[in-house]
């Protein structure tokens, strides 16, 4: 860290953003027993960054990304640092409401609001370039707005269909163009060495994530979902190597826990698979509510966690051209984002996750105004119900107002799962 920790700024701490973050973090740390010791790194990180407003250092140019489809590896390779700008703060959501129609996605609004604010938390330097993949309509339209705020924005063109070979080639071409753009911005070329190293950096992080992910298969659970969401949210802005170190440390602790037969949740706790719009700190409302109500989130299919880190790059020939195309493939082909025309892969992915994590039910979060998730809800529910898997569909936003109503619904859902299990056992 090159910037020394900023001394506490009382005025900031009293800000709505900081208070909001503090409430969430307190829930995460205090409402549960037996948090892993290695989680302390992440608790501290969030406290420093979101509550104390500590500035985040970075190397080289800073490249903001608004979606997991922007290849981090290319950014690392040219010596720049990526930071994911997707925001989960209600405070910024309200600021961002000026840019978007009232019934729009909170995440997009919050991101716009954050970029518009004088104090951007997480407190990074001003991004030298913001990469905005052309995913959903709301994100697409924010490009011009972000540009209007004085940022340099690059539209990373994404196809609407991902199965066809044409789409694949189109996307590969887009990614190459992006690499070209990065070269313009940073003045650095991709080489075999720097790209290989960058891929190694992310694949180390991915391997660590996968290990963590696999621990969640164990029953009873050795780690809670709220912690995992916190960890993957840290990936948005934390130094990648430090992040990997911390996750590896946690994995070591979990190995031990598993051997000791530790229970992070009750044996009978309903196991929940979380899907839908991404929970982004501090909006971890829904996963925290589930676990406070006695469930355990054992897996997820969201772009702030699993989808961001799970799929790994395979390279056949370690030449620049092949590595870049491989990266492009990895970002497009396994993606289960609902912006694509079809969602078969998402259904299959959910079913596989339910099976391999022995989930008892699925909670589907849709941020109000996020049309694509809202529209896919029905087909996903049908696919799950056909297999006898119950699904709770929750439409929510960043405001804390619906907490009471949500917890009632969640409790009822968990209760029904328990009843089913009892009946099945009898």
């Amino acid at each position, binding site marked *: 860290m090159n910037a020394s920790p900023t001394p506490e700024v009382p005025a900031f701490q009293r800000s709505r953003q900081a208070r909001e973050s503090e409430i969430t973090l307190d829930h995460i740390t205090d409402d549960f027993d037996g948090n892993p010791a290695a989680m302390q790194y992440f608790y501290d990180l969030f406290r420093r960054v979101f509550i104390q407003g500590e500035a985040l250092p970075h190397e080289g140019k800073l490249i903001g990304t608004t979606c997991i489809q922007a290849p981090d590896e290319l950014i690392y390779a040219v010596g720049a640092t990526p930071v994911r700008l997707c925001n989960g703060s209600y405070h910024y959501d309200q600021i961002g409401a000026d840019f978007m129609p009232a019934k729009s996605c909170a995440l997009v609004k919050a991101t716009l609001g954050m970029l518009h604010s004088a104090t951007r938390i997480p407190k990074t330097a001003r991004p030298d370039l913001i990469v905005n993949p052309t995913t959903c309509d709301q994100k697409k339209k924010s490009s011009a707005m972000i540009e209007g705020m004085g940022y340099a924005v690059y539209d990373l063109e994404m196809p609407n269909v991902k199965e066809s070979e044409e789409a694949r080639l189109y996307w590969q*071409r887009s990614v*190459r163009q992006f690499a070209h753009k990065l070269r313009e911005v940073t003045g650095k*070329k991709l*080489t075999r060495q720097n790209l290989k190293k960058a891929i190694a950096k992310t694949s180390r992080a991915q391997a660590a994530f996968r290990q963590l992910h696999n621990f969640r298969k164990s029953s009873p659970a050795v780690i809670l979902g709220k912690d995992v969401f916190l960890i993957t949210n840290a990936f948005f802005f934390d130094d990648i190597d430090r992040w990997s170190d911390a996750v590896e440390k946690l994995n070591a602790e979990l190995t031990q826990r598993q051997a000791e037969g530790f229970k992070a949740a009750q044996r009978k706790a309903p196991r929940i698979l979380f899907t839908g719009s991404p929970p982004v700190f501090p909006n971890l409302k829904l996963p925290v509510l589930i676990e406070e109500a006695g469930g355990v989130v054992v897996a997820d299919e969201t772009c702030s966690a699993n989808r961001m880190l799970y799929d790994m790059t395979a390279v056949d020939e370690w*030449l620049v*051209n092949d590595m870049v195309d491989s990266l492009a493939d990895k970002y497009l082909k396994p993606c289960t984002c609902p912006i694509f025309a079809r969602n078969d892969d998402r259904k299959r992915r959910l079913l596989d996750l339910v099976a391999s994590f022995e989930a008892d039910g699925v909670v589907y979060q849709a941020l109000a105004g996020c049309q694509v998730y809202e529209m896919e809800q029905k087909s996903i529910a049908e696919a799950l119900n056909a297999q006898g898997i119950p699904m709770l569909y929750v439409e929510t936003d960043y405001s804390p107002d619906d907490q009471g109503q949500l917890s009632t619904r969640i409790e009822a859902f968990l209760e029904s799962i328990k009843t089913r299990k009892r009946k099945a056992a009898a």
Partner: protein
Amino acid sequence: MSRLGLYAAALMALLSTTVHCQDSGGTHRAEGGRPTGMAMRGNVLWLADSPPARGDGPPRSGMGGMGGMGGMGGDRSGPPVKRLWLRAGADPQKSGFAREDTEATVDMTLVTPQGKPEGEPLPPAEEGKKNLSFEMPTQGYYRLYHTTRKLQGDTLAIAVAKAEVTNFSHGATEEERSVALTAPRVLEAAPIEIVREKNPGEKLSFQLKSGEEQAFVVLQKGLPLLGARVRFVSHDGWTKEAVSDEQGRVSFQIVRDYFPSWDDFQKRFKATYLVIAEASAAESGRFKDQPYTNVRYQATLGGTYYPSPDDYRSYAWGLGLGFAFLLFCGTAVYLYRRRRVKPFQEVRFDEKH
């Protein structure tokens, strides 16, 4: 097409000149099947694997081969059968069937790989058939000796016409083959015989090619015969003479005498050569109760040879075409790749840094 034909023929001629020149020195044309090189009384008898009327030429689906030639089909039920014809005349193409000579005595001995080394009499030919035939049930060399003895004044003429047929089909085991390959190819009892010397590195599927050197050994009762006059007659009747050395050895370069037009050229053209060895000795004895004071020995051996691949195969053209096309394809790929980058403004990366 005709132009191409001419061109190719010229090319072939060009490529084969070497073979040609070496030979032309010592060979000359025999007239009408009557060799002029040496006084030769009576006809030369020899064993051929084709009857005269049909002439020679492209391969036929006959079984077995002569002169170290294999080529067994082997898919017919029962052992392969080899047929040979006794012919008279020193020109492989023009010699006709041998006429029966009542004054002469004839012996026919067949030596087979599985039989006794001294051979056995050949089973009599089927009624009305001109050819001599025998079965070849095992792998190896089969030799047929046709010996005639005839008194001419005070001279006994002994003529041994010999044929060597190989039978190596694919089915044989390694052991069978090696036994067959190392078995002796000489008949101890033969008053005179010619043995084709195997070339170094000769394989089972050996084919003699024009332009190659081939040695023969003249033996008398299994021992080398010095000073025998040996004549080589090519398919077209070119002859060349030599005298055997102490080892009974003579060596000839197989002359190239096949010059058809390009359209008629056949690379599998099977040509027949004939080797004749003669010697006389002042030996006296009695034959059919008649005394003689001289013996004239004559041995013949027929064989086949083929056009040399050098006559029709060209490395220069093969490699030239290969390289030219390699360059062409390489350039095409290179240009294609260069061009591809343009219309789409493709971004490609430099692998070096």
